[in-house]
């Protein structure tokens, strides 16, 4: 397990080798590479400036890696995040996971990326034709549902209604008759 926040990323091939060599039981290695793109929110981006609280960011990434590794029974996980000035086309981060099977590898990778995108003290500023813009927390409201006092899901769906409806549809079969349903919606976007 390894995390880093710095001005350079490792070679992807080396990360794949590192993950493969973590265990003879590795059956799947999945790697995500984030890239600076030209078009963003209708703006024409020249570059991104990444800033971090490096000590804390590495602490947070370590916690995420540890948590995801346990949750999905991964054999290994590597997270590298870049900071500094990055031009369009440059790589921003690499997340790689090794697992016995591809299913848990894909799930683990997706959740890791979502968690890195919010909560870890790394910030980015777009330098675009239209001006300079800090990218603030874009996470949709967190939606939590309890059925008879038991939390059945924590979701990050797109928008309140879509989230609530999808969660209720997903769990409607397990909701006992006359159950008390409490829906709590919180947002960090205030």
């Amino acid at each position, binding site marked *: 397990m390894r995390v880093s926040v710095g001005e350079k990323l490792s070679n992807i091939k080396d990360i794949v080798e590192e993950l493969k060599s973590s265990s003879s039981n590795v059956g799947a290695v999945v790697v995500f590479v984030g890239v600076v793109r030209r078009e963003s929110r209708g703006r024409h981006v020249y570059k991104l400036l990444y*800033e971090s609280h490096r000590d*804390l960011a590495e602490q947070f990434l370590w916690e995420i890696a540890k948590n995801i590794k346990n949750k999905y029974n991964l054999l290994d996980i590597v997270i590298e995040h870049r900071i500094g000035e990055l031009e369009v086309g440059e790589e921003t981060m690499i997340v790689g996971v090794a697992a016995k099977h591809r299913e848990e590898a894909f799930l683990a990778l997706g959740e890791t990326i979502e968690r890195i*995108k*919010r*909560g870890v003290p*790394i*910030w980015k500023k777009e330098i675009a034709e239209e001006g300079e813009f800090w990218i*603030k*927390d874009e996470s949709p409201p967190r939606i939590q549902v309890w059925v008879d006092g038991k939390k059945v899901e924590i979701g990050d769906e797109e928008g309140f209604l879509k989230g609530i409806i999808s969660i209720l549809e997903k769990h409607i079969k397990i909701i006992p008759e006359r159950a008390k349903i409490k829906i709590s919606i919180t947002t*960090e976007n205030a």
Partner: protein
Amino acid sequence: MALGRGVKIRFFAWLREEIGAPSISLEGVSSLDDLISQLREMLGEKSEVLFSSDGSLRSHIVLAVNNVVIDIRQKNLRTVLLKEGDIIDIMPLGSGG
């Protein structure tokens, strides 16, 4: 209660730009609660960057003392005592990736 002196407060990302300073020092603060009160007064109009109209820290603000994140919504900030040389980091939620 013993008075702590000379703590450094660092601001990150757009908070630093909106406040207009990377860091400030405060003397004579004994606890995190005390520090927040003094900071609110000191910032004047710019306190809106960090504080809601009811005086509480905005929900997207994360606060750490000597690299340890403090749960400002759960913890009694009067119990977080400060001493000279402590570094308090005030930052917004992250947007990495």
